[in-house]
């Protein structure tokens, strides 16, 4: 039966010249659906990857109680020091707890496309480098504590032409030199600049920190840490697992992006189904006499249906390939800034093969929906009528 | 010449280069106003070409065509269209009605080209429907009408703008004998009411309804034979 279907399909495709217009339209329509879908999902996924990569299960981030995010958290200097003595925290070879006290400031800088972007500057101490082994220098050197020096994350470098090693920027009226750039395993911190916490605090007349991030003895030790914080209410602080914290921050945006991508893609797919139906009905109508002849000769009705459906699927796949290619052409490598934590995370969109396959899946579904009824009609054509049209 | 039809030395050629065919070569013909002319001849004789020239569907390569007191061979495309709308009604072998429109709407089409208002149009449509005897079928679509009825709708459409000249191309070619007779009687009636009719036909019996018959072969008029 399969052989029959192939034969019929061959004949049908041979005559596609007559239906070239409609077929092309269907292909373009499906390409549009796949292109948009793949692009939007890539946006969501890129964001997710960046944030999921941030944070580890064996680290916890401590914020002031009730703070929705790090930027809004405020821990006084004394509290931040005391937090290091809480339960569950891993100690280093020197017997001291592995903690990193960090504060944040924001500044605005022009992006490559001219719009103003929001840049987070993280003030860190030596503990941060010990806590975060994933941070490594790419260019230049680390800043010297006590000097007005900063290092810039890789993702910021590509987005902000003014933030490059060797350049300097004005913070609170005085110049700060950018002495190096760093990578951080592709996570959210690459969208930040870093500098000496003491120096930044002094420049911005701040005391206290936004967060204290600690190394846990083990992921299970989180419970210990939490209990320790609960028991000392004067600290007014609470802890979360670092990776879960970042994942939760991005949840809304990822949901929104994915949701919108699916919604828009779904609506477009509906339109593509209508276009596909149109094309396939017209194909069956224009090839009615041919199909009738084949059936009269003795070709299996079912084989005819399969052939018609296959044509629809082929159009779908062609559309999917075109759409994925266009998406890759336009969006692969496109840099995007997405809001998180009242800061912006910059990442690059990647059209992965897996996404392309998702697109093909959708295209096949559209092909099936658009080809099913016409395929049934082809099998059920009243022979006498169709032959008379000859 | 005042309200009749006249062709003088008309030449009509189709194709180019080696494929050139001279369908009409210096043909001259005069049709009096109020005449009912049957134009007969074998296929390829040029009778349809002649009909097209008379109806203003085509222009001759050389020569003059006069109809309804106008020299139409020099008119521009737009002027020719306007002239056709006012002076010519066409009737075809296969009726050529719009399948999606009712009889009444089909008949209305020529009136859309006039400044007449809706009520006036309706009145005229009713009048011609009455003339062709199809008042009861006004709301039917062509698929719901017999061949003869469709042709009568076509005739009504050709009449509704009150043209002087009716041009018919094998009007009974697709009808059975009895229906054909009915249609031809109707044409005769219209002729008696003053319409000039030029009819191409291959049916000698149809020609009997005409006042004059002219034969053609290979683009040339053969000596006239006048029907009694």
């Amino acid at each position, binding site marked *: 039966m399969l052989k029959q279907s192939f034969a019929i399909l061959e004949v049908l495709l041979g005559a596609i010249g007559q239906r070239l*217009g*409609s077929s*092309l339209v269907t292909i*373009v*329509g499906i390409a*549009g659906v796949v292109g948009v879908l793949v692009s939007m999902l890539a946006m969501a996924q890129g964001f997710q990857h960046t944030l999921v990569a941030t944070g580890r299960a064996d680290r916890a981030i401590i914020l002031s*109680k*009730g703070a*929705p995010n790090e*930027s*809004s958290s*405020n821990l006084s200097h004394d509290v931040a020091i005391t937090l290091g003595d809480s339960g569950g925290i891993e100690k280093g070879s020197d017997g001291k707890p592995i903690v990193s006290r960090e504060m944040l400031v*924001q500044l*605005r800088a022009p992006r490559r496309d001219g719009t*103003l*972007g*929001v840049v987070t500057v993280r003030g860190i101490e030596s503990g941060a480098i010990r806590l975060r082994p994933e941070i490594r220098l790419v260019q230049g050197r680390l800043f010297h504590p006590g000097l007005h020096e900063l290092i810039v994350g890789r993702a910021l470098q590509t987005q902000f032409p003014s933030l490059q090693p060797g350049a300097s920027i004005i913070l*609170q*009226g005085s110049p700060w030199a950018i002495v190096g750039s760093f990578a951080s395993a592709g996570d959210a911190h690459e969208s930040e600049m870093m500098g000496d916490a003491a120096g930044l605090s002094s420049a*911005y*007349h*701040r*005391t206290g920190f936004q967060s204290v991030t600690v190394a846990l003895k083990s992921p299970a030790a989180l419970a210990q840490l939490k209990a320790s914080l609960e028991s000392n*209410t004067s600290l*007014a602080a609470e802890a979360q697992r670092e990776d879960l914290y970042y994942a939760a921050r991005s949840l809304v945006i990822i949901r*929104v992006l994915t949701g919108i991508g699916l919604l*828009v893609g779904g609506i*477009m797919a509906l*339109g593509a189904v*209508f276009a596909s139906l*149109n094309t396939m*009905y*017209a194909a069956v109508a224009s090839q009615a006499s041919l199909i009738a002849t084949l059936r009269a000769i003795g070709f299996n009705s079912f084989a005819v249906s399969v052939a018609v459906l296959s044509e629809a699927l082929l159009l779908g796949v062609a559309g999917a390939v075109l759409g994925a290619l266009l998406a890759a052409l336009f969006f692969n490598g496109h840099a*995007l*800034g*997405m*809001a998180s934590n*009242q800061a912006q995370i910059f990442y690059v969109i990647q059209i992965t093969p897996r996404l392309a396959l998702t697109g093909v899946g959708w295209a096949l579904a559209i092909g099936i929906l658009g080809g099913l009824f016409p395929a049934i009609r082809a099998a059920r054509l009243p022979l006498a009528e169709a032959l008379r049209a000859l | 010449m005042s309200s009749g039809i006249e062709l003088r030395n008309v030449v009509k050629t189709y194709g180019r280069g080696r494929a050139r065919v001279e369908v009409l070569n210096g043909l001259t013909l005069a049709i009096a106003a109020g005449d009912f002319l049957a134009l007969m001849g074998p296929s390829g004789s040029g009778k349809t070409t002649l009909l*097209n020239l008379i109806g203003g*569907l*085509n222009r001759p390569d050389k020569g003059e065509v006069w109809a309804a007191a106008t020299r139409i061979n020099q008119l521009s*495309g*737009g002027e020719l*269209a*306007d002239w*056709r*709308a006012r002076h*010519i009604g*066409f009737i075809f072998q296969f009726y*050529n009605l*719009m*399948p999606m*429109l009712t009889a009444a*709407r089909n008949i209305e*089409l*020529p009136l*859309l*080209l006039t400044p007449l208002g809706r009520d006036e149009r309706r009145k005229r449509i009713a009048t011609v429907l009455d003339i062709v005897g199809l008042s009861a079928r006004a709301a039917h679509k062509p698929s719901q009408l017999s061949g003869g009825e469709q042709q009568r709708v076509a005739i009504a*459409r050709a009449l509704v*703008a009150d043209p002087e000249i009716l041009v018919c191309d094998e009007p009974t070619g697709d009808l059975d004998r009895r229906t054909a007779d009915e249609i031809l009687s109707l044409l005769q009636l219209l002729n008696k009411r003053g319409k000039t009719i030029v009819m191409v036909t291959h049916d000698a019996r149809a020609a009997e309804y005409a006042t004059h018959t002219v034969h053609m072969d290979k683009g040339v008029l053969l000596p006239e034979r006048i029907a009694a």
Partner: protein
Amino acid sequence: MKYLFLVWSGLWRRRTRTILTLLSAVVAFFLFGMLEGVDSSIKQLVGIAHLDRLYTANTALLPLPMAYLPEIEKMPGVTSVTYVNAGLGSYQRPANQVAIFAVDPARYFAMIPEVVTTGDAKAAMLQDRLNVVVARPLAKKFGWTPGSRIVLHVPAMPRKDGTADWPVVIAGFCDYTTAPDTPVVLLNFDYFDAARLKDRGTVQRFAVKIRDPAQAGTVSAAIDALFVNSPAATQTETEKAFAQASISQIGDIDFLVDAIVGAVFFTLLLLVGNSLMQSFRERIREFAILKTIGFRDGTVAGLVIGEALLLCGLAGVIGLGLARLALPGLGRASGGLFPAYLSASVVAAGVGCVLVVSFVSALAPAWKAHRLAIVDALVAH
């Protein structure tokens, strides 16, 4: 319009094809309405920014001392100052989101004209700290009436007593005219400040009304200069800049929307154009007949264009109509994240698209109809 029946009948020669093309076009216009509706709603948030209003905030969104207020108010060019602390909360279930604004009732309503309430409601807020004024659609949703006592759970505003549950009394309703679906609850700042766990005596940001919008830059710089050496340095900017910064955080929405809409309409053009061309080819004989009757070339071409206009116009009306119905639902579903409605400008743009798609897709078949030679057409078809 006497030609209408003729144009209409031309569309329905092949019912299935016309319906499917129409549906595809409806989808396109629906998508257009939804996307542009959201996009323009968001842009409006920036556009309607008040030119005479500045926002003063900490450079890292930490609180500012309330003591700053009299200092700011004294500045030349400043007419009045107020403050707002905002936080997201919920009512009974986390899904029932509300936006709490802790405000100073005496100054807030006077300075923020887009939030409209009755004199009684305002007085009630001043009279009893527990009284709140809520957005009308929000009250309707939960069936709150004046006098209702409710509890709002606001994790962003932890209280001294260790909870984040704020009992309040509904005193009246307000209308947030520029973003009607925002689930706003206006809370008395004194109540908030007295019961809050930390940062007492501080505010998130100040709203500053200035006398002359042209002086925005000067006044902003002056305010920031006041506090540059204080523990909490400030960054003052116009409401427009503030809104733009917030919007820019949501990513390149504009670009995305334009790209999608462009792709969709390009495809639609091809679809409608193809459909019209097919339809024309099937009806060559009919167009020829019209010409024999005396229809001019231009008129016949016009009929083809008319078909395109009718088809696209119908699709536009249905598609945009559906978008109009769906958008407010989307706005509500996003919890007032963006107020979504179909603005007049989007409708106008939609009409423009109808015209462009109609004319461009009808171009080829209309031209062919114009050039159609009667005799050839009648013979061949």
